[in-house]
């Protein structure tokens, strides 16, 4: 068919309508993205305006005080670092081990389905329930008291299910041809996991771990339940780690909560400043996750 000179290939009729819809949808979805971003930006702006001037070195290293201008977050900051650190040590081996078992070793039977179903359910349990469990089991039954170890055990229980699920996802992304390739060379199952599956899955696993840890770092309900304090005049020391595990503690979210319920305006400023510290901390974790993802990405 010859192309007539009047043929200009402009979208007309149904094609024009489809194209219009396609262009419009782009702005619709941009709008959806901006909704979330706008709220976040507003939140950050208000927090920064309120708390930035209060933020200085003294604020980080001082103990809480009934005088707002002398109060600091030393116990809460160190408490958070301790609790999250110990949680990581407790949760990561169990979670990654579980994910490896489920994906690489478990026989495909009813027991496995049962385990998987329960993991998904546990990942959806509200954190206050973990707090009640931690209070009943670690604080009371094992008589640990409201100490760092009890808090970490509780948070570990809370983040294990989601870490397992994220690690499973990462392991499942490794193409079966990689496993088969290793096994066909006479590698054992464990060697294939150790040398082929885990290195490829590592970025995903690390991302899952760090996202779970940032959730643990911001967790309030469970720690309030097991009895984190709001007013401490000592902080856990890195020099006596065993002692520190059994110290009473507080964490940033509880410190923030404690200050926001105080009617005095100056304490609200303290709360805002503490929020900034927590936000920066979580952001550092997330940047760390991104760097690791890039570092481990196969060339």
């Amino acid at each position, binding site marked *: 068919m010859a192309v007539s000179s009047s043929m200009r290939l402009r979208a007309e009729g149904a094609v024009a309508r489809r194209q219009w819809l396609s262009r419009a949808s782009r702005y619709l979805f941009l709008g959806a993205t901006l909704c979330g971003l706008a709220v976040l930006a507003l939140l950050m702006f208000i927090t920064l305006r309120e708390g930035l001037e209060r933020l200085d070195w003294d604020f980080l290293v001082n103990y809480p005080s009934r005088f707002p201008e002398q109060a600091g977050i030393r116990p809460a900051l160190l408490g958070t670092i301790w609790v999250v650190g110990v949680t990581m040590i407790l949760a990561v081996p169990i979670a990654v081990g579980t994910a490896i078992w489920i994906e690489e070793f478990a026989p*495909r039977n009813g027991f496995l389905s049962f385990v998987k179903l329960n993991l998904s359910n546990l990942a959806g349990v509200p954190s206050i329930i973990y707090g009640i469990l931690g209070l009943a089991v670690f604080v009371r039954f094992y008589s640990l008291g409201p100490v760092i170890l009890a808090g970490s055990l509780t948070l570990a229980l809370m983040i294990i299910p989601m870490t397992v699920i994220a690690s499973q996802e990462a392991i499942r992304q490794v*193409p079966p*041809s*990689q*496993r*088969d*390739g*290793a*096994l*066909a*060379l*006479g*590698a*054992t199952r464990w*060697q294939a996991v150790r*040398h*082929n599956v885990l*290195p*490829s899955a590592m970025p995903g696993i690390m991302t899952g771990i760090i996202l779970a840890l940032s959730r643990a770092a911001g967790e309030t309900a469970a720690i309030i339940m097991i009895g984190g304090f709001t007013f401490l005049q000592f902080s856990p020391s890195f020099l006596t780690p065993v002692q520190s595990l059994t110290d009473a503690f507080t964490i940033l979210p509880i410190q923030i909560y404690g200050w926001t319920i105080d009617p005095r305006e100056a304490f609200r400023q303290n709360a805002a400043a503490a929020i900034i510290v927590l936000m920066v901390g979580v952001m550092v974790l997330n940047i760390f996750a991104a760097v690791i993802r890039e570092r481990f990405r*196969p*060339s």
Partner: protein
Amino acid sequence: MKEAELRETEDRLQAAAAPLASLADPTPGSELGAIRVPDGEAVFELSDVGVWYGNKHAISGINMQIPVRKVTALIGPSGCGKSTLLRCLNRMNDLIPGARIEGEINYHGTDIYAKKVDPVEVRRRIGMVFQKPNPFPKSIRDNVTFGAKVNRIKGTPDEIAERALRQAALWEEVKNDLSKSGLALSGGQQQRLCIARALAVQPDVILMDEPCSALDPIATLKIEDLIRELTKEYTIIIVTHNMQQAARVSDNTAFLLAQEHGVNGQLIEYGPTNELFTNPRDKRTEDYITGRFG
């Protein structure tokens, strides 16, 4: 001339023995003499081998002997079970949930599915090259030495890598780039890397599952030359879709067929490649190689 005469005599002897061999084949309707016993020492002896995937009977009643230091090709239309059969020979089917093997596969006289046989030992001796090149996301050197490392084979990584890469006719192309990622190579090079990787474990048999199906004709020719070269030292069993390839590289050819959809695959004809292609004994083999179906 003498050799040709000898061969003819042997063939006639085999033809005489063939009805005996086919007695072991319980399948009704299989023609007498279509499944021949090849010359020489056997690496594998398969008796009544069948595979189930769950409730699906993938292949059944396979009886054949695979000779040492020869290329044996498995051909047949899609779904006839040739890859399934291949994966039985180094117990890769063990990895598929729900797979069950029946019958006996003797490797140098030992049943590889016997209780005390370890699949890792089997796979170390019987290497495998897959349809799609699957180099690890590691350097070329680490790719080649991986199997040697996990199997604790003696030698420095560089020695092992060089020897295997030379055997796989890849050394000249990569000798200056051993630290480069294996994924950076072309498809044909990747496949030769996978062959080198298998050779580095010092296997006895190499199974190849359509090794050229993802490659261009030139890369395919290189792999085929390599297969001919390797057969001096190794026994090679190759699954291929490509009948010309089977004709070019193999000494013996086995034709498998799943007669109708949903019916398990069976060994229809097995014999010297040139005879099977020029003078098939079974009507179905003839139909397949002349392109009437498949």
